[in-house]
C-alpha cells in the first residue's frame, strides 16, 4: 500500500517535471507560458479556497491581495523608484503586506455574512484597483493607468528565471524556468492547505462555515479564526501576485479587475469547493479551456462556415458561461468536490431522486 502510494507519487513528480517539455513539444512555446499562468491562478484559487471553501466567507474582492503582492514587487524591484531589492526580500514582504490587508479587510467585516460580506469585499477589491489607478498624483507612486514596466525578473543570486540557459545541449527557456519556480510555490501552497485543512484550525473553519453560533458556543473565538482565514488567503494571494509581477515584467491596474476575482472564485466553485485537488483542477481547466477555445474558435468557423462570423473573444465568454451552468446543473458540488461537500449535496440528490420517482409513479 505504502509502496504503491509512493510509486504513484514518483510518477506524478516525474510527469510534473517533464510537463513543460511535453507541452512545448506538442503545442509550442506559448502553451508553456499558459501553464505558468495556470500555476499562478492555482495558487490564487487555493488561497481563496481557504476563505470561501473552508471558512465559508464569500469574498468577491480577492484579487486585491494579488494586486497588493504584485505592486509591492513592482515598486521595490523596478526603475520606478530606482529600487532593486532582491526577490527573497520583496516576495515575502509582498506576502506580509497582503496578509496585513487581509486582516484590514477582515476586521471590519467580521459581523457580516453571506451577501453582505460579498458586497463589502467586492467594494474593497474595487477600491484597491482604483487606488492603484489614481496614485500617480500629486505624488506619482504607482504610475496610474500606465502601470509599472521594466520590473526586475525573478532572480536568486546571479540566477535569473527570466533568461535562457544551455544545459547539456538542451535549451531551457525562461518559461520553463518559471514553470519550475511556480510549481515549487504551488506545491508549497498545496502542502500548507492540506495540513491546515486536517487540523484543529481547519476544523474550526469548517465549524464556522457550518454553524457560526454553535461554533462560538463551543468556545471557538470566531473573530480570530475568521481573521486567520482572511490572512492566510491573502498571504497566498500576495505571493502569487509577486511572482506574477516578476514574470510579466509589467503590472497595471487593469489586471486586477472584478472579472479576475470572479474568475478565481469560479475556479474554486467549479473545481470543488473545499477540496485542494478540485481547486487545482478548476484552475487548470479555467486557464486552459478558454485559451484552447480562443485558438480554435476562429479556424473552426472558417472551416465550417467559410468565414469568421462571431468574434472568438465574445464566443469564449459565452462558452464559459455555458460551461458554468452545465457544471452547476450536473455537478453542483463541483467537478471534484471534497468528500464532505459531496455528501452535502448527496442529500439533495436523494430528495431530487425521490421527486423524480414520484413524478414517474404519477405518470404511470
Amino acid at each position, binding site marked *: 500500500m505504502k509502496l504503491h502510494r509512493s510509486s504513484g507519487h514518483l510518477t506524478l513528480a516525474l510527469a510534473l517535471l517533464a510537463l513543460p517539455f511535453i507541452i512545448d513539444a506538442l503545442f509550442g512555446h506559448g502553451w508553456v507560458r499558459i501553464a505558468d499562468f495556470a500555476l499562478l491562478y492555482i495558487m490564487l484559487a487555493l488561497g481563496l479556497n481557504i476563505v470561501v471553501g473552508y471558512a465559508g466567507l464569500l469574498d468577491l474582492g480577492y484579487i486585491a491581495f494579488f494586486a497588493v503582492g504584485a505592486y509591492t514587487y513592482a515598486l521595490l524591484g523596478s526603475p520606478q523608484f530606482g529600487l532593486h531589492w532582491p526577490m527573497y526580500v520583496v516576495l515575502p514582504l509582498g506576502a506580509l503586506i497582503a496578509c496585513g490587508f487581509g486582516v484590514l479587510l477582515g476586521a471590519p467585516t467580521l459581523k457580516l455574512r453571506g451577501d453582505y460580506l460579498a458586497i463589502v469585499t467586492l467594494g474593497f477589491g474595487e477600491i484597491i484597483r482604483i487606488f492603484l489607478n489614481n496614485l500617480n498624483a500629486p505624488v506619482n507612486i504607482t504610475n496610474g493607468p500606465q502601470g509599472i514596466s521594466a520590473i526586475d525578473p525573478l532572480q536568486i543570486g546571479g540566477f535569473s528565471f527570466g533568461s535562457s540557459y544551455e544545459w547539456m545541449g538542451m535549451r531551457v527557456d525562461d518559461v520553463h524556468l518559471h514553470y519550475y519556480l511556480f510549481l515549487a510555490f504551488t506545491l508549497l501552497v498545496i502542502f500548507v492547505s492540506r495540513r491546515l485543512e486536517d487540523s484543529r484550525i481547519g476544523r474550526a473553519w*469548517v465549524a464556522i462555515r457550518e454553524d457560526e453560533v454553535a461554533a462560538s458556543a463551543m468556545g471557538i473565538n470566531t473573530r480570530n479564526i475568521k481573521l486567520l482565514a482572511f490572512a492566510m488567503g491573502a498571504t497566498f494571494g500576495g505571493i502569487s501576485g509577486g511572482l506574477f509581477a516578476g514574470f510579466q515584467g509589467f503590472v497595471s491596474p487593469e489586471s486586477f479587475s472584478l472579472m479576475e476575482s470572479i474568475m478565481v472564485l469560479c475556479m474554486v466553485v467549479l473545481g470543488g469547493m473545499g477540496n485542494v485537488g478540485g481547486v487545482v483542477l478548476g484552475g487548470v481547466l479555467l486557464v486552459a479551456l478558454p485559451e484552447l477555445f480562443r485558438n480554435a474558435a476562429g479556424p473552426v468557423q472558417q472551416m465550417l462556415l467559410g468565414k469568421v462570423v462571431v468574434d472568438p473573444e465574445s464566443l469564449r465568454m459565452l462558452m464559459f458561461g455555458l460551461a458554468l451552468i452545465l457544471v452547476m446543473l450536473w455537478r453542483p458540488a463541483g467537478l471534484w468536490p471534497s468528500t464532505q461537500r459531496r455528501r452535502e449535496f448527496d442529500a439533495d440528490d436523494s430528495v431530487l431522486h425521490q421527486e423524480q420517482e414520484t413524478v414517474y409513479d404519477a405518470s404511470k
Partner: protein
Amino acid sequence: MTASDKTLLELTNVGKHFGGVTALADVSLHIHRGDIYGLIGPNGAGKTTLFNVVTGLYQLDSGSFQFAGQSYTRCKPHLLAQAGIARTFQNIRLFANMSALENIMVGRHLRTRTGIWGALTRNAAARAEERATVQRARELLEYVGITCAHQTLAKHLSYGEQRRLEIARALATEPKLLTLDEPAAGMNATETVALKALLQKIRASGITVLLIEHDVKLIMGLCDRVAVLDYGKKIAEGAPEEVRRDPAVIAAYLGGEAA
C-alpha cells in the same frame, strides 16, 4: 464551605426584552454545584432566552450573573465556554456536514492549542494532541451511547442520536455547567429512559446540569431543584414536589394549556 463555594451559577435580577416583549423580568436564581436543576414553564416563558443570556448569545439588559465566582454582565460566548458553560440547542445545531467524530473534536478546540505552526509541521506535540483529541472524541461517543460509524455525518444520525451527539460535543469542552435545552424533545420512551440514565451519569461525574424540559415526569424524577418561569418571571422555585403543588404553577400551566 461558604455560600459562594456552593453556588455555581447565580442570576441577580436578570432582565431581557425584545422590543415590547419582556422575555425575562428580574429573574434571580442560584444553582448549586453538583445539582441537576430544572427550568420549566409554558411555551414562550423565556427559558431559552435565559440560556442564551448565560451562554453569551444574548446580552442582558439589566442585572448580572455570577458563574464560578466571576461576575458577568456582557461577555462573548466563547469566553463563557472557556469559563465552563457548555450548552445544547433546542433546535439541534450540530455541524451537519461534519462527521459525528469531528463534531466532538470541534468541541475539544477550546481545550487544545495546536496553532498554525503545529498544524504545518505536525511536530510531536501537535501529533500527540491530535491523537488525544480523536481518542477523547471516541470515548465521548461511547459515553453518550452512539454506536454508529464514527464517520457518519451528523445530519444522517437519528434524531435521538443527534440530541446525544450535541451532549457529547458539549461535554468535550470540559464544562462545569452543562445546560440542556429540551434534550428529550422528540425522543421516544426508551430513549428518554436512556437519557435520564445519561444525565445521572453526567451528574455523578461532577458536572452540574441545568435542564429545560417539558417532560414533567423526567423533571420530577431527575431534578434536585426546579424553577418555574412564566411570562419571563420566576413564579416558583424549590424541590420538585413542592413546586408541583404550588398553586401559581398549576395556574400558569392550566392557563397556558387553556389558551
